[in-house]
């Protein structure tokens, strides 16, 4: 559940915070979200990764569809990647990595500062 919540909130962050802030601010935001929601490490990584990755893929496809611009194909050719679709994939992979590691950092940070339980009955 927490993983799904993190994914959805990360996508929203990309869509609403993204336009007014740099990508690294979004990364910090995903890290904070992840620390707050606190899924397990694997869930955090996948949640942040899918959130930012899907957010970026979704936005680039949305822009491509609403503008019908030749630019993605031209950029793909310029960068030696062939078509615009390859660039969508590259954008997604980059978002995936950035989001995943941000979220994982967030959750590990919370784990690190979580107070070690005291007075636990040790038997």
């Amino acid at each position, binding site marked *: 559940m927490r993983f799904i919540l993190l994914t959805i909130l990360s996508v929203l962050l*990309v869509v609403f915070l*993204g*336009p007014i802030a*740099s*990508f*690294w601010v979004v*990364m910090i935001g995903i*890290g904070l979200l992840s620390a707050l929601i606190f899924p397990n490490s694997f869930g955090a990584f996948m949640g942040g990764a899918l959130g930012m990755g899907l957010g*970026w893929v979704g*936005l*680039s496809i949305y*822009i*491509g569809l*609403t*503008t*019908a*611009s*030749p*630019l*993605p*194909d*031209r*950029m793909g*050719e*310029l960068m030696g990647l062939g078509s615009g679709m390859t*660039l969508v994939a*590259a*954008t997604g992979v*980059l978002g995936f*990595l*950035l989001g995943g*590691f*941000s979220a*994982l*950092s967030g959750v*590990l*940070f919370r*784990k*690190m500062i979580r107070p070690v339980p005291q007075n636990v009955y040790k038997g």
Partner: protein
Amino acid sequence: MKYVSFFLTLAVSVALAILVSRPIGQIPPLAPLLDPNHGFWQNSYSEDQIAKEELSLENLSAPVEVVYDENLIPHIFAQNEQDLYRAQGYVTAQHRLWQMEFQTLAAAGRISEIVGSRALELDRMTRRKGLAYGADLGLKFLEENDPETLALVEAYADGVNQYIDQLSDARLPVEYKILNYRPEHWSAYKSLLLLKYMSDMLVGDRDLEYTNLRKILGEAGLNKLFPEFPKENDPVIEAERVWDFTPLAVTKPDSLSYPDHMLAMNPLNQPIDGTGSNNWAVAGKKTKNGNPILANDPHLSLNLPSLWYSMQLSTPEHSVKGATLPGALGVISGFNQHIAWGVTNATKDARDWYKITFQDESRKAYRYGNEWKPSQFRIEEIKIKGEEAFLDTVVYTHYGPVVYDQSFRSDRADVNFALKWTVHEGSNEQKTFILMNKAKNHSDYNLALDNYSAPAQNFVFASKSGDIAMRIQGKFPLKWREQGKFFMDGADPRMEWQGYIPFDQNPSTLNPERGFVSSANQHPVDPSYPYYVFDNSYEHYRNRRINRRLREMEQITVDDMKALQFDDFNLQASEALPVLIKLLGSAQAGSPEAEKYLGELSSWDFFADPNQKAQTLYSIWFAETAESIWRELRSTDLPIVTPNSYQTIDLMASSPSDSVFDMKSTEALEGADYHVKVGLDSLISIMNKWVAEEGDYSWANYKRTTIQHLVPDFKPFSVGNVYTGGGSGIVNATGSRHGASWRMVVELGNEIQAFGVYPGGQSGNPGSRFYDNFISTWANGEYLNFNLRTPDQQEGVLFKTTFN
């Protein structure tokens, strides 16, 4: 453990974020580029998708309205000129910011800052030619003499800067994102620099080559192969013109000695062959509706973003429309409610070279007559991306900068040459266009032109009141015969220019009897003109074709003028092909290919239409023949020019057994026919290769017209293989890389009818649908409606923006 895993992950995240925010070699920072919210994806929007109804522009005295028509052509309605040019700056920057800045960086010799050391040689050359030095002087001239114009140029710069200051990452032109830099502020200086850059593009000289030719061929040989007037001269100003002024005296020194060197230097870049233009105006007595019609098509490199940007600029006093140069104020080629004007390049050797004899190695002084004159040093700091700056010391003499010296393009340490060029003098071209935009009649046009120095242009004119005119305007040095054709000795004061031709003695004509005026970069005048006129690159074909057509046409309509701009008739081929075939005689190389090609050639109508195969065959055959004829002349390592096509064809036709055709390296005595056969053999082998590799050799497929992005490496931003006819020396002068960069036809009736088109689009953004949308219209010889608009006109509006 938990500390280790957190810090490790954090380190990976930060490292990743840093890695993708920094350039790696030539690869730009990936995350800012790919981020869909800020990166290149955002450049996918066309201008109408991100249009705003209101924008804030400070320092305006009243709101300014901008109406974009369906082609994204802005029509700016302002209450006064200050507001008008401020808005022009803002609007132009919205669509063409990267291009404006890139062109001025090129003009300032600063390309290395963006692309690294591979542009260093280019930047050094630009700086050594002194373009920035000329712009400095231009700015000083405005400060001292013309504060009104300066205020307008500064208003324009302010408009550009207000745009830059509010520019978000998302809206930053994609070229900045790829090349990873940001725009800096615009300034009045940059607008002036841009106009100097036009001079550089359009002005050449062949002093170095002629100096060498003079040594190789001798005086007589040179005059035979390079006569200063062609047999059939059809000049810009009609030959019948009577010069009704008393010319200034020019005294030629009695004994002349030229620097006695064979010069193996690497010459400066010259304007590309085929850079030229056409313009003409026909009087009402020759037109169907009785109104004058004016046409202009400047030929320049075909680039994207296009060199031109169309606009209408209106105040309550005037409304002008046409082609602007992004970075310069006003319309450069266009019309208003009263007049229309256009430009073609008026080539005339305006750059001269002087040999400088320095006193010693410090180069602090140089010989001038009996004295030593002190020189000045200008240290050019060329910043290089990713490397240390390069310092280039350029010595300035009173003639101008010493371009060639031991550190630049010369293999001889003892040879120094200074460049004297009208561009290095304070001048006020910008004022010409500001005044011309408001001109109402022929005398306003003349007043506007009185401010114009360089690059010299043939300004065509027509007015609603029925006048047509042509004036060749520029600052032309007063020269004795052959002065400046060769390198001169700078130590000899007698070699100085003796002043300038007074502007009112520059060649001009008003309402000539023949009912039309025209120019196509040919000789400006008939030999009766009292001043010395020389250039290596005069046109010999387009001018004669245009004038022939205009002489025979009556009842002319706008459509006739459009057709003439798009005329593909190859006059050179019509004169040369019969000579080639005659010289080939019965010795036709009996192969089946030769038969086939000669068959195609002999049934050709001489039109270089895109589907014509014979045009391809002719162009190769003639080029190979000329190459063979001048091969021995070219075989020295010295830079030279070869005789032009017109002269070559004339020699082949009139004296085919002349000694120029004999190959000195063979025993036998060759004539022109020998070279024609060599040319045909080359044609066959070139065609065999082409047919095997490419197949179709129709003209459009062979010449491959390409509209190239200003950064040639950005191939996907270029448009290649444009299907269109024409070629160098043809009225439709569209070659593979240059051609009609703007076409305009204006009929000056009660209601002005105007048409225009250029190979590109209004947007400089390769992601916009307005980036290259005019190209197919242009390639088909069609036009867009360019009629003046009023602010309340409703039809064909894309969107409107109000500046408050």
